[in-house]
C-alpha cells in the first residue's frame, strides 16, 4: 500500500480498520487466544482497567497525529509499576506486540498501537512519589502530567524546566520517550538534560534501574541512551528528574515585526550578540490569527511575525539584557517591543504561544506539522522557501517555532474532506524536510521519528548507521515486541526474521498486508 512520492516511499498509508470476526482478524495470533489473555490481564489489573470491545477501543486508535490509525486488540490501564511489569511479562510470554502510551499527545505517531496488539496506557500511574528540595530532584511516575510537577513544587519556589507547549496535557513518561524540548531549550536544554535516573520495565518484564539520584553515575550513560528511545527500549515506570530553583527575575518581551525575514534576522542578531535567552520563539501571521481567536494573548493581528523572547537570572543581569535585545530588534526594523509588565501579562504571552498548535482548529479543519531543524542562520532562507511552497501547493502554512534552536514547526493547513489535499500536504511536508536536510539540518527536533518519519531516516543515515542503531535496540528489545514499526524504515530484513516476523505480524506493522 505504500505509494512512491518523489523518490522515496510515503509514510502515509490509508487507515484500515479491522472489525473483529473477519478473515484477517482470524489470522491474528492475539485474537485466537484473546479471551484467555484478557482474563489473565484482568486478573492483574481488575476489570476496570482492561478494554477489549471495539466501541471503546477506537478512542485509542490514534495519538496526537491523527493521520495514522490502528485499533489495538486490548488496552490495559495499570495503576502501578508492578502491574506494568506483570502485563509486560504476559505480552512477552505470548509474543504479543505492545506499545506504551501516556496522554496521547505525541505528534509522530509514537504511541500508535498495532492491530492485534496490546496498548498499555500509563495515565493512571501518575503519582509524584518524592520531592527532595535540598538536592533538587523529584521522583515521579510516568503518567504525571508535565505541569503537575511544576505546580506541586512551585509553592516552594521550584520548577521543572522542560516545558513542551503541550505541558498542560503531556506526560513526563512521554517526554522521556520522545526527549521532548519546549520553549526553554536555548538556555536549559531538552528533557535528557534533566533526567538523573529511571526505573524501567524491559520488554521481557524485568525491572531495572538506570542512572541514579546523582548528577552522574559511573559507567555508560544508559539514561542518556534510554531518553529519546521513543518507547522502543522499555517502559519507564519511575523518573528521577532534576528540579530547579526559580530565578530571581524573569522578563518576557514581545517584538512585533512586519515580516518573517526581519524577525529571523533579529533572532540571529540576538544570538550573535552573545545573549543566551531562555526562549526565542517565533510566530507568523497565520499562527497569530489562530492564537488570537482561540486565546486572545494580545499579539497584534496585523503583524507579519511576532518574536517572544524571555530572559531570566539575577535581577541586575535580566534588567541589563532588555536593552541590547531591543537594540538588535530595532536594527531589524521592529515595529514595537513590549516588555510584559507583570506575571499575568507574561503568562498570557506564553499561553498564546503554547496554545498555537491546539488553536489551529480555529482557522483550519486539519493540520500537518513538520518538526525539521535547520542551522539557525538559515532561518530567512527556509522561511522564504516555505512561503514559495505554500503558493505552489495552494496550501496555507502557519509557522510556530523555536527560532532560538532552529527547530521549525510549519503547520501545513489542509482540509481532509477535499480529495487529494492530505496528499498535497504530505508532499509539501517532504519538500520542506528535504530542503532542511539540504541546508545541513535534520528531519526532527523534538517530536520523534515514530511512525510518521520512519521512511525519511535514510535521507539522514546510511544503511550502516541504521544498522548500528538497530544493534542498540536489540540490546534492550531483542525480540522487537515493544513498539514495533517505529523509527526504522520498512523492509528491514532482520525484523522479518524475528519472532514477530514468524508470526506474520511484521507485514501488518509495515503496512504491506
Amino acid at each position, binding site marked *: 500500500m505504500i505509494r512512491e512520492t518523489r523518490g522515496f516511499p510515503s509514510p502515509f498509508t490509508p487507515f484500515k480498520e479491522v472489525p473483529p470476526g473477519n478473515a484477517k482478524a482470524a489470522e491474528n495470533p492475539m485474537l485466537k487466544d484473546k479471551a484467555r489473555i484478557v482474563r489473565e490481564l484482568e486478573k492483574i489489573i481488575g476489570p476496570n482497567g482492561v478494554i477489549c470491545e471495539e466501541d471503546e477501543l477506537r478512542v485509542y486508535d490514534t495519538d496526537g497525529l491523527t493521520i495514522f490509525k490502528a485499533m489495538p486488540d486490548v488496552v490495559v490501564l495499570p495503576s502501578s509499576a508492578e502491574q506494568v511489569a506483570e502485563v509486560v511479562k504476559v505480552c512477552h510470554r505470548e509474543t504479543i506486540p505492545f506499545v506504551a502510551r501516556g496522554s496521547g499527545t505525541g505528534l509522530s505517531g509514537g504511541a500508535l498501537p498495532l492491530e492485534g496488539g496490546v496498548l498499555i496506557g500509563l495515565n493512571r500511574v501518575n503519582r509524584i512519589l518524592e520531592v527532595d528540595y535540598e538536592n533538587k530532584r523529584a521522583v515521579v511516575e510516568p503518567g504525571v502530567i508535565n505541569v503537575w510537577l511544576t505546580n506541586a513544587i512551585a509553592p516552594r519556589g521550584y520548577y521543572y524546566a522542560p516545558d513542551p507547549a503541550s505541558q498542560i496535557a503531556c506526560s513526563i513518561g512521554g517526554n522521556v520517550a520522545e526527549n521532548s524540548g519546549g520553549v526553554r531549550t536555548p538556555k536549559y536544554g531538552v528533557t535528557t538534560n534533566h533526567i538523573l535516573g529511571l526505573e524501567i520495565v524491559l520488554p521481557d518484564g524485568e525491572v531495572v534501574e538506570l542512572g541514579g539520584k546523582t548528577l552522574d553515575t559511573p559507567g555508560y550513560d544508559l539514561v542518556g541512551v534510554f531518553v529519546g528511545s521513543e518507547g522502543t527500549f522499555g517502559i519507564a515506570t519511575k523518573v528521577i528528574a532534576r528540579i530547579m530553583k526559580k530565578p530571581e527575575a524573569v522578563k518576557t518581551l514581545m517584538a512585533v515585526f512586519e515580516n518573517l525575514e526581519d524577525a529571523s534576522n533579529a533572532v540571529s542578531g540576538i544570538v550573535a550578540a552573545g545573549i543566551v535567552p531562555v526562549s526565542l520563539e517565533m510566530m507568523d501571521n497565520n499562527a497569530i490569527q489562530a492564537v488570537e481567536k482561540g486565546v486572545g494573548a494580545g499579539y497584534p493581528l496585523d503583524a507579519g511575525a511576532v518574536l517572544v523572547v524571555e530572559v531570566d537570572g539575577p535581577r541586575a543581569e535580566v534588567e541589563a539584557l532588555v536593552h541590547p535585545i531591543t537594540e538588535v530588534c530595532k536594527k531589524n526594523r521592529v515595529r514595537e517591543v513590549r516588555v510584559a509588565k507583570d506575571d499575568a501579562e507574561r503568562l498570557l504571552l506564553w499561553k498564546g504561544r503554547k496554545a498555537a498548535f491546539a488553536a*489551529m482548529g480555529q482557522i483550519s479543519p486539519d493540520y500537518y506539522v513538520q518538526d525539521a531543524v535547520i542551522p539557525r542562520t538559515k532561518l530567512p532562507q527556509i522561511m522564504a522557501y516555505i512561503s514559495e511552497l505554500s503558493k505552489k501547493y495552494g496550501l496555507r502554512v502557519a509557522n510556530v517555532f523555536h527560532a532560538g534552536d532552529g527547530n521549525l514547526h510549519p503547520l501545513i493547513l489542509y482540509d481532509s474532506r477535499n480529495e487529494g489535499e492530505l496528499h498535497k500536504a504530505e508532499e509539501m511536508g517532504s519538500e520542506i524536510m528535504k530542503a532542511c536536510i539540504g541546508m545541513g539540518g535534520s528531519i526532527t527536533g523534538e517530536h520523534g521519528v515514530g511512525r510518521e518519519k520512519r521512511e525519511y531516516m535514510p535521507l539522514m543515515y546510511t544503511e550502516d548507521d541504521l544498522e548500528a542503531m538497530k544493534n542498540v535496540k536489540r540490546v534492550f528489545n531483542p525480540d522487537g515486541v515493544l513498539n514495533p514499526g517505529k523509527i526504522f524504515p520498512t523492509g528491514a530484513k532482520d525484523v522479518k526474521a524475528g519472532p514477530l516476523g514468524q508470526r506474520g505480524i511484521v507485514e501488518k506493522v509495515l503496512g504491506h498486508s
Partner: protein
Amino acid sequence: MTGPAADKIAAGGFDGIDPPDTEIYLDCVHCGFCLPTCPTYLVLGNEMDNPRGRIYLTRAISEGRSKITDRFVEHMNLCLLCRACETACPSGVKFGFLMEAARGQIERNYQYPPAEKRFRDHVLRTFTDLDRLETLTGLLRLYQQSGLQSLVRASGVLSLFGRLGKMEALLPPIPDQRLRKELPEVLPARGQKRGRVGFLAGCVQRFFLPQVNLATAHALAENGFEVVTPKEQGCCGSLLVHEGEREHAKAFARRTIDAFERAGVDFIVVNAAGCGSVMKEYWELLHSDPVYRTRAEAFSKKVRDTSELFAQTPVNGRLRELPLKVTYHDACHLAHGQKVRQQPRNLLKAIPGLQLVELAESDFCCGSAGVYNVFHPEVAQKFLDRKIDRIKETGAEVVVSANPGCTFQIERGLKDRGLGVRVVHPMELLDWSYRGAMPPGLQRI
C-alpha cells in the same frame, strides 16, 4: 447549527432531529488540552471518559462506523456537562452543544432497561414540574418536621429502597414554604430606577431555597431595579436539555420566552447558574423552530446572571459590615458555561468587612451537575470529596455558591464531614449586608 431540523437527514447512526453538528468535530484537533481539566478523566482514567474520546466516539456514529451501544451511552451519560473542556480548548470546540445533541439522540434512539427508564422519567418529571414539586415539598417538609425522617434514617430501612433510598440521603432540609409566597409578582425599585428586570424564580430554587429568591429580589430592588416575577413562568428546561429531552425542553423554552416577552423587561435575571446558561443558549435549542428562532435569539441576549447585572452598574450604597471569611466556588455553568468568573468575586469584594479567600480548583465540578449525583452517586461523591478537601484548606466559614445544585451538594458534603461551614448565595450576602444582619428567619436549619 444551520437549517431547520426537518431539513436534516439521518447521519450515520443518528436520526435527523438535531444531530450532532459535524463542524464541531472539525474544530477538534485532538491535542488533548482538555484531558487534565476533565473531572471524569481524572477520576476514571479512560480515554472514553474525556472530551477528546467522547467527541471521537460520537463522530464514529455520525460517520456510520459505530452505533449507539450500551457502552457509548454509559460514557456519554458519565459526562458531567461541566464544560471545563470548553474553557481549556484553544480551538473553541463547542463540546456542550455536541453532548446535548448526542444525549438527545440517545434519549430517542436508545432503549434504557425499563426500570432505568422509569427512574429517569420520575426524576426528570419531579424536578421540572412545579405542581409536583409543590406537593412533594409539602410532604417532605412534614416528613422532616414530624421527626419521621430521623426515625427512618435511624431504622436503616432506607437501604431496602435502592436508589430511592440513596436519593433520600441527598435530601436537603425543606424550608418553610410561606417564604416562597412572600415574593410578590412586582417588587418596586427603591431610589432612582435603573430598569425593569424579569426574574426567573426557577423550580428547585423556588421550593428548596425561597430565601435566596427573596434575597435576590430585595438586593435588585435596593439597586434600583423593578423586579417582575411573571406568574406564568415554569421550568426553564435546563435539566431536560442536559439529559437529552430536547423536545420537552423546547416546549418549556417557548413558554419561558412567552412569559418574559409579555412582562416587557430590559433584562431577564437568573440567580441559578444552570438555568442561566441554558437560557443564554435558547437560540441554539430553538434554532430549527421557524417561529421562535429569532425570538429566542433576542431573548438569549437579554439573559443575565445576577452578578453580571451588578457588574454593569456599581452596587448602591448603604452596605453594612459583614465580618465573614468566605470562599467562592465557581459553578460550572457560570464559569465554563457563561464565562462569568470575576463579576461575583467583585460583588463579594464590595461588601465591607467580608474577607474573600480564593478556593483552589474553584472551577472544578462539585459533582452535583444537575441530577448527576442522583444518577451516578458513587462517581459524584469522588468530586464532592475533592471539593470539600479544597474548602477545608481555605479555613473559610462560608462557601459562596451561585447554583442551587452545587449548594445542596456542597452543604451535604460539609455536613457529612462534620464541618460547620455554611453555603450561601452571593445575593444572600448582599441582602444581609443591606440589612446589617443575618435575619434568623432566613438562616438555614
